[in-house]
């Protein structure tokens, strides 16, 4: 399915989402955090989209907002889509988990929680994965300061 067709299909489910290309070949969909889970399960379960392979889940610190970027691929249709979600709340960012849709998200979301502090609702085992439990702060955030271990050039 081409990017235009995908955009049309998704618009028919959830209208007025923002679509961008961001200089890449993939279609980027920006979804508000409260519609995230709904859109994701549609993308996975609809036979026309069939995005059953979540190959990359990255947390991003956008400065004023924290967000997660999902790269999805369909193993039957072989098309790719990028879904982006943001939350403005830097103190207590909460998003819905997608680990019930793609099992791989469980580990990836733990990684995001570890490094960005984004909490995921309904996640089965949301603990720090790489860092110790008593680690303060979230290292991959842009405002993280560590005078000893970080070398700033």
């Amino acid at each position, binding site marked *: 399915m081409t990017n235009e067709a995908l955009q049309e299909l998704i618009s028919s489910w959830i209208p007025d989402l923002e679509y961008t290309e*961001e*200089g*890449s070949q*993939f279609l*980027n969909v920006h979804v508000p955090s409260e519609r995230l889970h709904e859109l994701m399960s549609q993308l996975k379960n609809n036979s026309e989209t069939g995005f*059953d*392979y*979540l*190959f*990359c889940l*990255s947390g*991003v*610190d956008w400065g004023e907002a924290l967000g997660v*970027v999902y*790269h999805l691929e369909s*193993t039957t249709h*072989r098309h790719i889509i*990028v879904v982006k979600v943001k939350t403005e709340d830097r103190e207590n960012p909460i998003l819905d988990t997608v680990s019930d849709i*793609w*099992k*791989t998200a*469980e*580990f*990836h979301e733990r*990684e995001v929680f570890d*490094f960005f502090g984004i909490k995921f609702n309904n996640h089965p085992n949301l603990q720090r*994965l*790489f*860092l*110790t439990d008593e680690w303060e702060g979230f*290292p*991959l955030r842009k405002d993280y300061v560590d005078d000893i271990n*970080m*070398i*700033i*050039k």
Partner: protein
Amino acid sequence: METPTVHSNFKSEEYFINMGPQHPATHGVLRLVLTIDGEIIKKVEPDLGYIHRSIEKMCERDSYQQIVHLTDRMDYLSANINNEAVCLGVENALQLEIPERVKVIRTIIGELTRISSHCLWWGVMGMDVGAITTYFYGFRDREMLNDIFEETCGARLTMNYNVPGGLMFDIHPNFVKRVKKFVAHFKTKIPEYDRLLTGNVIFQKRTKGVGVLSKEDAISFGASGPVARGSGYSCDVRKYHPYSALDKVTFNECLETEGDTFARYCVRIRELWESLSIVEQLIDNIPQGEHRVKTNAVIKLPKGEFYQKVETARGELGMYIISTGTKSPYRLKFRSPGFSNLSLLNHIAVGGKIGDLVATMATLDLVIPDIDR
């Protein structure tokens, strides 16, 4: 009052055991917290981060040329393919025209890296199931490759041969001759591998029906590479998103349907043949030309987002760059194959014995720096 049965007197209790961070079967500093009932595994919980170096954070302050060097230290067994991922990503973002010669050489060295990685995996696989001799056989053939790499770029493991825009140096005059010699040599050695390990009854008993991963689970867990292909999930990035000179060669994607440890083993052994065939197709027609195109000393990527996939020896390595137009990426995420492959370990190891866990883990072919990044 109920009379206690014999069984309640001999109640089996679950207990924890720490496999790692120093353990021969975890191939690095991976710690698995196992919940065991006798010999039977009830739960496997990986504890990561013992060698996390925060490469992604370091990338945010480094230039793109420097990032290439960091990727060596992720999956050190397919270092060259990791380098290639960064270089391809940067080149595609800059829309650089890369000479054919560079593409072909990159592909050849990439496939040789894959063979070298699989050789090491095969040796370690044998060692994990108790056949120590395989280790030395694997290393004997790997040594020839390492010598070729050393002659080509001066390094044996962390090669740094690729730079954005091409290759750091041209190939050594002996390269073609030595690679041909290796191909001829290795063709006689893969059957030896089969005789020593693949056909062994004990080995087959240890691996068949162990750690079964269904195709649906493989996709859902984001498995890639030989792990996913052992479950019949066709996911070879070289086929679906060909890069460098891979669109010019013919090769088969190795698929098995059983999804057990033996299937994953067979996929890797067959991949050795396929990689050899790719090398054979290219080695005689390396085109003449430049080995590098000129780039700016400070590479600045245009504003935007770029994603580059490559197939390392372990599976799909993704590199996701968010650029704001400066000399360093705003955010760089590596989607490492080992991380996703590790996440399914608990799913396939539960219910097996300790020995099964070790065999299963060997065919997941985990490289810990790749997981910990």
